[in-house]
């Protein structure tokens, strides 16, 4: 049935919003829906062909109706596709903002640790990217865009926590070895299972990335 696949995409999009991780890109469905649109468009052209551009809906209500249905189907499919891609794009943007490793970055860092720098290569396991190639490209570009915008506000750290700060210093526990960090009170070596009383601003990033846990 026309439209079934579009609905499936929307359901995927809806489900995606409540998932912690981006599920794999449904390239098959996307391709089928796009093909459906092309088929519908061809139908429309075929139906209109005998009229040579002089189609009067009032004379042929049946043809007009089938044209209308096809037009609406195409538009609906387009909206479904857009909704699906937009929902995913928003998730990708969210990941850029929170600084969590994008799946494709994890992959890249497995292949080429040196290029990633920083040495924070999280092995994401599967090794298969859940992003489409276009989405990977989008993620990369968005990250650049974000960095450019952030650059205007260097003192603020736009991607920092959106929780109102309560204390200047907090207790943290180290969940994963994170090497040495520099603070204004000297260097701290973060070894697993140790506990520190540090300035929140210094370790925010590491908390977001899951190296440290904040203790109450």
């Amino acid at each position, binding site marked *: 049935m026309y439209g079934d696949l579009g609905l499936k995409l929307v359901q995927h999009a809806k489900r995606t919003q409540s998932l912690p991780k981006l599920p794999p890109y449904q390239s098959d469905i996307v391709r089928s*829906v796009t093909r459906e649109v092309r088929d519908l468009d061809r139908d429309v052209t075929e139906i209109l062909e005998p009229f040579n551009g002089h189609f009067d809906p009032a004379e042929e209500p049946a043809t007009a109706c089938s044209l209308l249905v096809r037009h609406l189907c195409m538009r609906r499919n387009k909206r479904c596709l857009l909704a699906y891609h937009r929902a995913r794009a*928003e998730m990708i943007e969210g990941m850029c903002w929170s600084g969590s490793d994008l799946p494709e970055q994890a992959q890249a860092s497995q292949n080429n640790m040196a290029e990633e720098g920083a040495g924070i290569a999280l092995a994401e396991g599967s090794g298969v990217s859940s992003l489409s190639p276009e989405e990977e490209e989008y993620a990369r570009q968005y990250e650049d865009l974000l960095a450019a915008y952030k650059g205007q506000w260097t*003192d*603020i750290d736009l991607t920092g926590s959106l929780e109102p700060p309560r204390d200047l210093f907090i207790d943290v526990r180290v969940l994963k070895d994170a090497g040495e960090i520099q603070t204004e009170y000297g260097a701290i070596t973060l070894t697993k299972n140790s506990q520190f009383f540090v300035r929140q*601003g210094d370790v925010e990033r590491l908390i977001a990335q899951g190296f440290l846990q904040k203790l109450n």
Partner: protein
Amino acid sequence: MDIDDLLQELDDNKVPGGTRDINDLTQSWIAERTAPEILPFQTALLERLMERIRQQIEFVETQTGNLDPKTNFCLILIQTELERVKFLVRSYLRARIHKIDKYSIYILTTPSIRGRLSPPELSYLKSHLGLLNSHFLASFLRRFPEQLRRLDDKAGGISMVEEPDLDSAVFCKVVKDIEDNIARIPGTDAEFRLTKGDVYVVRYSAVREFVLRGEVELI
């Protein structure tokens, strides 16, 4: 004008500039988070605050080596204050970015709203829209028939462009005496009078003009 007004004026003048800026920032932040549409960017205010933040950071940096307990305590106060102001600015900017992302085409195509963005925000908006557009094109739109590739279709009576819902409810407080103080609720013939000190829950569209003029504050 009675004694209360005089006292009020006195208070307004007595508040030092820095404190007033922080109050203004807090107010802008609250307004930005509650208003359905994007509000004018507080260019001058943000500039003053950023300058002060820079100064404070510098001061903290020069004083860190100081072992005098009194200065040390001072520094902690300053840093705490800094973190708080930074949080306000960050949250303010993020609230704006959120709206910019959500209503991008609407903002870009409505000149009066577009002027409310700061230059960096506008360039962010444009590049982001460009990115999304090329992403959609690359993903599926390029395989579409020509006439279906646009992102701002209005065919079929449904506009694809998402617009802020100006009729959503807001809490607001009248903070100034207003001369022409009748607020009308669009689409109905309901009217009400805005008296200083009043608190209302109304549709944003009814008080929009007053909010933009600073006579009514969102709370």
